[in-house]
């Protein structure tokens, strides 16, 4: 918010600070540093709503895995962490943690933790993890400032820093407690881009090296690095096509690509993908193209004959493309280069996942983005973005081309998947900042020339050459000044609305930990449903330490982190068959499911049920995905069996298979005896608003082990087989 006043303050500073003995340059520096400092603090504290509303805790699902691994890292050290075989998840398969995760986040948090301990601040690792995301968000504002400064000017940099500090699109993934890869990855992403743009601008090896290290950090932190390794070559290609090839570009890209690739190979999860996977081939191709370009340049320099060069050019380009094409073809055919993954396809073709990979489509954050959520996450930036593009095109340079490409491509991906709004946010903020900064600057320079002309003859300050041209304009248009004032007021009004909107969204929508549910009671008091932790803690304390818990994969990470028990499947959805087996067990009849559970050594089954509280994201509402994923691998499970005329229902009209499958039984066991709402019959499901169809549920192979106080989590014990004697 502070930075909104930035630009006018900067311009007015020469008047207001005249009494102080500071040079204009020093005043400007002081202002800039203090504004940045304020933005830095603001970015941090805006993300603390969740800590104030709830407590200092880890949110959602994936962060619990990250927290658990960080805990392991700080307790056992790096080598143990790197070689960790986790037998507590994916029973009986287990998971090689060191080789299947991006360690950047955990290592970062552990380093912060060790540093603090070294400085004699004995904090708990949980606090470090909770505050990692806000801390990196603050750092991102600094990078945004330098980036803005690089592509436009310091004013744009300050505005960009302020915009990104509170932009909901970014806050949604970086509030205190959302300890996820994205928390550090956006910082790394922006840093890499900034350093690369800087390298292209200066042609300096050191900046290119910096960007290679930024890329390395990004690769270590998040799978979204694929975006960098495709956007950068694309950018280079565009520069080549538009005839902006230069030695600076050659140095920057080659250094960044080669070093970045070698560094990235050090991450075990990524390994040799840079030379073996189809998704990384664009970068390789552009790298080769770059060499061809350089070679041609050199030949052109050597040959003075244009005609000869034209022939040579034709031959070289054709053969280069031919060789490249053959290499790619042979690589793909021989299986050395792996084809594109389903996730990559689903980005290019939004309908792909829906038809082919139900497990990706089942995640709500992988859905195509609705217009409303764009508005929700960007607010005025949505309108400022095109304006910013206009300014960028007006002053085209290597840097602005980059930000335009970054903005347009990431905005496309944001349209494909909700969660990728996050990637687009920095670009949108930067481009919008250009729009704001340029507009405000033009308007204020208009105002200032008018004031100055009658006062003094000597004009000093910003844009003195511009002002002289504007003087003539002003004389011809008497309402110009008023118009400019009105426009300025309008801009500030919009920006203040943005600030209000961001604060509101942050506090209302993005600061809920989702592990603790809060509702308003009849008298306006706050009611807390802490059922998840109740159940997980019960599991942790009152079940055998080697018990295996079966649940839908959403809760896997939480059960291992909070319940400290072995799970069958978890949120790292690497084995579709295993998940399908669980889906099949949940959608089978009890005795069929019992055989599956026996074969998986399951001791406890955990289901999430919202029928008493009206909590809608429970297992019954997720059930069709279990059927679909289960049916995808085991054709015995057929989706139409659970539907009536294509409709999913749980009341009397539900299909018999639905009424007797394991999930239905476990959710509604003895629910038929309960009166949930005054004036409704017993067994009234508040989440779906119907009276359930099967009130007399008998369990044969399972027994109720624990049900939380609001029935949200129900745990069942799998009985041992009955003795035959």
């Amino acid at each position, binding site marked *: 918010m502070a930075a909104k006043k930035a630009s006018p303050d900067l311009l007015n500073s020469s008047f207001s600070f005249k009494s102080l003995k500071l040079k204009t340059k020093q005043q400007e520096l002081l202002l800039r540093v203090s504004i940045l400092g304020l933005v830095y603090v603001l970015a941090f504290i805006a993300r603390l709503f969740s800590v104030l509303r*709830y*407590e200092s*805790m880890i949110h959602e699902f994936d962060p619990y895995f990250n927290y658990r691994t960080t805990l392991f890292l700080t307790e056992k050290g790096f080598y143990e962490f790197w070689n960790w075989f986790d037998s507590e998840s994916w029973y009986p398969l287990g998971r090689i943690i060191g080789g299947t995760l991006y360690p950047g986040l955990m290592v970062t948090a552990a380093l912060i933790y060790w540093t603090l301990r070294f400085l*004699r*601040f*004995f904090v708990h690792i949980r606090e470090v993890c909770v505050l990692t995301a806000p801390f990196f968000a603050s750092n991102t504002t600094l990078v945004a400032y330098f980036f803005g400064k690089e592509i436009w000017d310091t004013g744009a940099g300050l505005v960009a820093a302020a915009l990104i500090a509170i932009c909901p699109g970014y806050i949604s993934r970086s509030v205190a407690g959302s300890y996820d890869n994205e928390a550090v990855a956006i910082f790394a992403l922006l840093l890499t881009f900034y350093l690369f743009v800087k390298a292209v601008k200066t042609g300096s090896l050191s900046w290119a090296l910096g960007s290679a290290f930024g890329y390395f950090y990004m690769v270590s932190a998040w799978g979204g690095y694929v975006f960098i390794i495709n956007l950068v070559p694309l950018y280079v290609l565009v520069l080549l096509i538009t005839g902006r090839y230069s030695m600076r570009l050659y140095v920057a890209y080659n250094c960044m690509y080669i070093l970045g690739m070698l560094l990235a190979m050090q991450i075990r999860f990524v390994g040799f993908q840079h030379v073996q996977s189809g998704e990384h081939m664009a970068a390789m191709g552009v790298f080769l193209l770059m060499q061809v370009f350089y070679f041609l340049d050199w030949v052109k320099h050597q040959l003075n004959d244009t005609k000869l060069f034209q022939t040579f050019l034709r031959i070289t380009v054709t053969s280069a493309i031919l060789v490249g094409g053959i290499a790619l073809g042979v690589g793909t055919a021989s299986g050395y280069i792996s084809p594109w993954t389903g996730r990559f396809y689903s980005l290019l073709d939004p309908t792909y996942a829906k038809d082919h990979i139900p497990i990706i489509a089942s995640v709500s954050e992988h859905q195509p983005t609705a217009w409303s959520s764009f508005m929700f996450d960007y607010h005025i930036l949505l309108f400022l973005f095109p304006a910013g593009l206009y300014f960028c095109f007006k002053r085209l340079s290597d840097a602005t081309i980059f930000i335009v490409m970054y903005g347009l491509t990431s905005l496309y991906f944001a349209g494909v998947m909700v969660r990728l709004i996050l990637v687009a946010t920095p670009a949108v903020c930067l481009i919008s900042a250009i729009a704001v900064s340029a507009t405000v600057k033009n308007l204020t320079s208009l105002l200032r020339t008018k004031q100055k002309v009658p006062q003094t003859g000597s004009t000093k300050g910003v844009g003195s050459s511009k002002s002289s041209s504007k003087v003539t304009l002003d004389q011809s248009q008497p309402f110009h000044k008023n118009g400019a004032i009105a426009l300025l007021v309008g801009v500030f009004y919009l920006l203040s609305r943005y600030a209000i909107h961001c604060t509101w969204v942050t506090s209302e929508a993005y600061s809920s930990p989702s592990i*603790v549910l809060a509702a308003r009671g009849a008298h306006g008091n706050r009611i*807390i449903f*802490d059922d998840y*932790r*109740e159940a*997980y*803690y*019960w599991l*942790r*304390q*009152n079940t055998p330490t080697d018990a295996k818990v079966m649940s839908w994969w959403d809760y896997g990470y939480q059960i291992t982190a*909070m319940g400290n028990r072995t799970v069958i499947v978890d949120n790292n959805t690497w084995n579709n068959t295993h998940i399908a087996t669980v889906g099949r067990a949940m959608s089978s009849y009890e005795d069929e499911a019992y055989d599956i559970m026996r074969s998986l050594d399951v001791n406890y089954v955990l289901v999430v049920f919202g029928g008493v509280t009206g909590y809608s994201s429970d297992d019954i509402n997720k059930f069709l995905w279990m059927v679909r994923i289960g049916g995808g691998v085991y054709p015995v499970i057929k989706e139409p069996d659970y539907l009536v005329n294509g409709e999913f229902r749980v009341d009397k009209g539900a299909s018999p298979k639905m009424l007797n499958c394991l999930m239905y039984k476990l959710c509604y066991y*003895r*629910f038929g*005896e*309960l009166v949930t709402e005054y004036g409704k019959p017993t067994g009234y499901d508040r989440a779906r608003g119907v009276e359930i169809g099967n009130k007399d549920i008998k369990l044969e192979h399972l*027994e*109720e*082990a*624990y*049900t*939380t*106080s609001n*029935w949200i989590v129900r745990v069942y*014990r799998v009985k041992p087989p009955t003795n035959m004697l």
Partner: protein
Amino acid sequence: MAARNWIFAVAVFLSLSTFSSAQDLQIVNAERRIDLSSHIVKAFLTLKVENIGKDPAADMLLAFPPTQIKNLAMVQALAVMGKKKKKNYLPLDVKPSEQPDAPNDAGYFLVSFATPLGPGETVTLEVLYILTHSLEPFPVEITQSESQLVYYRDSAVVLSPYRIKQQTTFFKTPSTRVESFTSVEPANRAGKEIKYGAYEDRVPYSYAPVIVHFENNSPFAVVEELVREIEISHWGSLQITENYRLTHGGARHKGVFSRVEYQSRRSISGSSSFNALLAVLPPRVNSVYYRDDIGNISTSHLRTGFKKSELEFEPRYPLFGGWKATFIIGYRVPLEDYLFEAPDGRRYLNFTFGCPLVETIVNKLTLKVVLPEGSKDPSAVLPFAVNQDLQVKYSYLDIVGRTVVVLQKDNVVPTHNVPFQVYYTFKPIYMLAEPLMLVSAFFFVFVTSLAYVHIDLNIVKK
């Protein structure tokens, strides 16, 4: 204990020659009231002791069977002085005592009289002893709808190295439901009370094992381990952190836990389980928190008062037999209420020992007093024996670490909640160490940045 022994009164004789005082004293009248209403068994023993020897007796022995001696949490004795109207009580010194020829591993406590008991004189003693883990659930496992039945094993007559002329024993049960009790004539039951006796003239070491089988649904809250850490900050507060490992020590829960029964038929379902606990905290307590390994627990309620504060809280789930819960309670109290300066210039902390939870047994209590950095010569003063140790702890901005006085005691009951003192010497100048460190760190940062701005590191002059 084998059931066939129930009704046999076993009298154990031994050579009386080894006990010089034993033959000189006799107990004219003994009355014992054993309160079985909670899982902490309290026994009140009134003894009228007479010296029948020729020499004055300075002390007397209390004997306990070996099954009780390991569960004995505390023995206190008072001498009753004066007549009925102007009765006053004088606490006597009681300490455990080893006797070389103890029959059947009986354990002893030695009570020292305030003034030696002259020949022919009598004195009345009030003895209180507390037993833990002495109620044995039977059946061992119960379902949610059953109530909890327990065995209590004791002797119908008071075990004593002295001859007892006349004695009676009363058992008070929590409810009228008594399944059975061993009959040692004369014995009878009225309401919640079972009376054994009066028995006349029993020889030393008379023993008559009895078993009472009765219903006890009181919360069997057993803290398996409690670590209390009291951190003294001379900046004005005591920070207390208590780590609990609580378990339900009663009959184990078996089979299903049905929420629908638990919430709709509360009176008959899970009657031996408990989900509400009460902790008595000091007055003027502030910044109270209640959490566990995975975060805050929202079910707690604090009432502050002038004499004490009460924290009512619930574990995340109700505790049935055998279920466990761990949690942490932390709070802060003002320093001036608990830290004083002794006349010799040393400082001392005066705080309450024991466990703040009411009606709970603590199997192992570790109390850590973290002294401020730079304090020396710590010493602890307690009214009973505990294991003492010294440790070093590092906290915020510590360099040499803080001295920690560790006091450790097993089998702690609410009666142990008595004040104790920890003395140490401390120079107030050490209080400034941490602020000065911070100030110098910031100063250093600013000086470095100042230097950085002014130093030109370029090789080539621009």
